[in-house]
């Protein structure tokens, strides 16, 4: 293991891994993905990740803003928790200096509340036992912050000490997002609208390790450029979780007008969904995406009944994943708030114009009947045009 002295310009973070530490023979694959994702997001700052005993030790060059490191770890799936840590030689005087330096930072720096020192001694040959280390360092905390109180069960703050090849000290961990490292589960195409649901769907699939590109259907002048900007903003908000993304924008105006003129009014929405599926399939194929991801929830609107979903599924050659299918709106909204997309999603720029929305849409379509209606529209050429003329925007993974 490469050694680092505690210097002012080197930062160390201790990262806890969840599910991936339970993996068997392919654990290296997951860990490699996670390492790459973290390093990429911290780039251009220099970083080194070392793995030991089910954890990562992240060393970041001192000129990288602490805020950037912490925002990176909070948005990287695979990270269950992290703490800023200090490391020193197994020398009592150095350990005291290290503890003193650590408690000058948050969360101890407020100087009040309850705490405990918890020591784990991997190296049993160290001349002090865990209890002695805990009491001595506890005394140092109390000397510095006389208003603080020791509480062994459920303290507000913890100072943890691990005596191993070296001594590691860190405070209570900050929770990370958990999940699996993005990219370990393949690649998908997220159908991103300007609404509340689809960014949450993308976030949930990224949490299971699926890397995603995003696809938006723009119908200017029937939808405004503000609606497109809103989708770009949403893609930017979920991009750090997804370790960056590409937003593909399809000009859908011609297709929508064609549907309006060549299908029954009550079928407009279904035909539009069918066309979207066809276009999404073609784009997914071009980009090596194995699945489509949508924000549909069962029964939320007419196009999200079981029958409608069966029909749209029949229009796709690749699986359609619907991570929100069993969630109710309140649950979706709560996640949207948590990941910071809600306020953008509710901006009043609609992603579909009223003139394309039937007053009484079909809610229980028959697959055969609708497939025939779709074929009768003879829209293939237009769909191909949509794909050929699609625009692409690269969205950075930086937080």
């Amino acid at each position: 293991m490469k050694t680092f002295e505690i210097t002012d310009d080197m930062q160390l973070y201790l990262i806890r891994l969840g599910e991936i530490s339970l993996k068997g023979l392919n654990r290296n694959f997951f860990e490699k993905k996670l390492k790459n994702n973290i390093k990429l997001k911290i780039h251009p700052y220099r970083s080194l990740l070392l793995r030991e005993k089910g954890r990562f030790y992240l060393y970041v060059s001192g000129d990288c803003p602490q805020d950037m490191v912490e925002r990176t770890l909070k948005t990287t799936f695979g990270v269950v928790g992290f703490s800023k840590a200090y490391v020193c030689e197994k020398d009592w005087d150095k350990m005291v200096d290290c503890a003193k330096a650590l408690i000058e930072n948050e969360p101890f720096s407020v100087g009040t509340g309850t705490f405990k020192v918890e020591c784990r001694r991997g190296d049993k040959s160290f001349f002090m036992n865990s209890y002695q280390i805990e009491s001595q360092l506890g005394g140092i905390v109390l000397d510095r912050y006389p208003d603080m109180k020791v509480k062994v069960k459920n303290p507000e703050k913890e100072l943890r000490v691990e005596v191993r090849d070296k001594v590691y000290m860190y405070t209570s961990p900050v929770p990370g997002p958990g999940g699996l490292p993005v990219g370990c589960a393949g690649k998908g195409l997220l159908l991103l609208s300007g609404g509340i649901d689809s960014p949450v769907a993308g976030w949930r699939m990224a949490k299971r390790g699926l890397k995603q590109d995003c696809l938006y259907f723009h119908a200017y002048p029937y939808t405004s450029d503000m609606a497109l900007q809103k989708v770009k903003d949403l893609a930017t908000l979920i991009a750090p979780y997804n370790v960056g993304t590409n937003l593909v924008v399809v000009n859908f105006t011609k297709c929508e007008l064609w549907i309006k003129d060549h299908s029954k009014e009550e079928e407009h929405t279904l035909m539009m969904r069918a066309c979207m599926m066809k276009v999404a399939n073609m784009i997914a194929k071009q980009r090596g995406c194995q699945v489509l991801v949508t924000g549909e929830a069962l029964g939320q609107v007419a196009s999200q009944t079981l029958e409608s979903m069966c029909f749209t599924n029949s229009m796709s050659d690749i699986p359609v994943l619907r991570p929100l299918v069993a969630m109710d709106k309140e649950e979706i909204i709560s996640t949207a708030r948590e990941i910071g997309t809600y306020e953008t999603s509710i901006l009043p720029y609609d992603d579909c114009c009223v003139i394309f929305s039937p007053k009484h849409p079909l809610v229980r379509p028959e697959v055969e009947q609708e497939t025939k209606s779709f074929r009768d529209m003879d829209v293939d050429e237009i769909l191909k045009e949509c794909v050929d003329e699609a625009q692409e925007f690269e969205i950075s993974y930086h937080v």
Partner: protein
Amino acid sequence: MGKRALEVYADTAVNFPGNPSSTHPLGVLAKQRLEDERKAIASMLGCPASELYFTSGGTESNAIILSSLLRSPNPGEIITTGIEHAAVLEFRNVLEAAGWKFTALPCPGGYLEPERLEEALNDKVRMVCVMRVNNVTGTVLDIKGIASVVRKYSSKTGRPIHIHCDAVQALGKIPFSVKDADIDSASFSAHKFCGPRGVGMLWCRNKAVQSLSRGGGQEKGLRPGTENLAGICAMGAELKLSSDSLKENYNKVLGFRCKIEEASLASGYTLLSPSKDSGKEFSPYIINICVKPVPSEVFLRVMSDKGFCLSAGSACSSNSRGKAESVLAAMNIDHERRMSSIRISMGRDTTEENVSALCTALREASSEFGIGK
């Protein structure tokens, strides 16, 4: 802001740096300039200078009159129309919360029928508030006829009723003098006749009106606050320009309006404003057309791409509501037509070329959307 307004603004700001309320020589000079301007504007409006108050615009002028009702210990009723500007209609909640009855009469086609007003009048009514020119469709309401209905009723009951007129869209555009109709107060806004934004006037002959605002007692306490002398003088200069060429501008814009009307009808749109041949009174400066079945917002985007800044009568977005929605509803215009309403406004500087280009753009948009097919 017009060029003349800019010149006068700069000149006044530089040469009259004093606060008109100060007693030092610079303040006295500024006060003199303010009162000279008041006299000049009052003579254009046909009222005594003592009845003219400078404000920040039409909204504040209306607010002074409407909020004065709140000082009355016995709430009564105010009658207005459903096609008023939000500066009036938004007072509904405030007045109702204070126990007032707020009656907004429907105006089919954009006009208030005198019989409807006659029926609505009762002994609780303390104020009638009616606009001169509707800002959404350009219809001109017969304020003289309305005033005579109110005065007739008032003389029968012996109870005074204050008549207020929102004349923001009228001044400088169509002939308007406070002497024309038997009214008690009227609101004006400078930016409607190329004056600066944030300046306006209230004419009020009813001495009983009291402001809710408190301050340094400026404008006889009706609109306390340091006077915007440069803005007021710039407003006066532009009002003079507009008044001097009122007839000429009116005829020019009327010609434009007729052209737009003809081009619109020929392109398959319909009119929400009265037709030029309807025999009804309207301001040529505003024309409202219906671009059904295209939603207003969509049509505006297309026209904006063609270089025209028009406004929507209504908003199709589910999350927002168009400002003019309730006004068009009060004119008995159905939901579908309201959703496709477009307002075209002109000014005295609008040119023949502007109008021709607009007519071409309207024709192009019609064929792009397949309107009238």
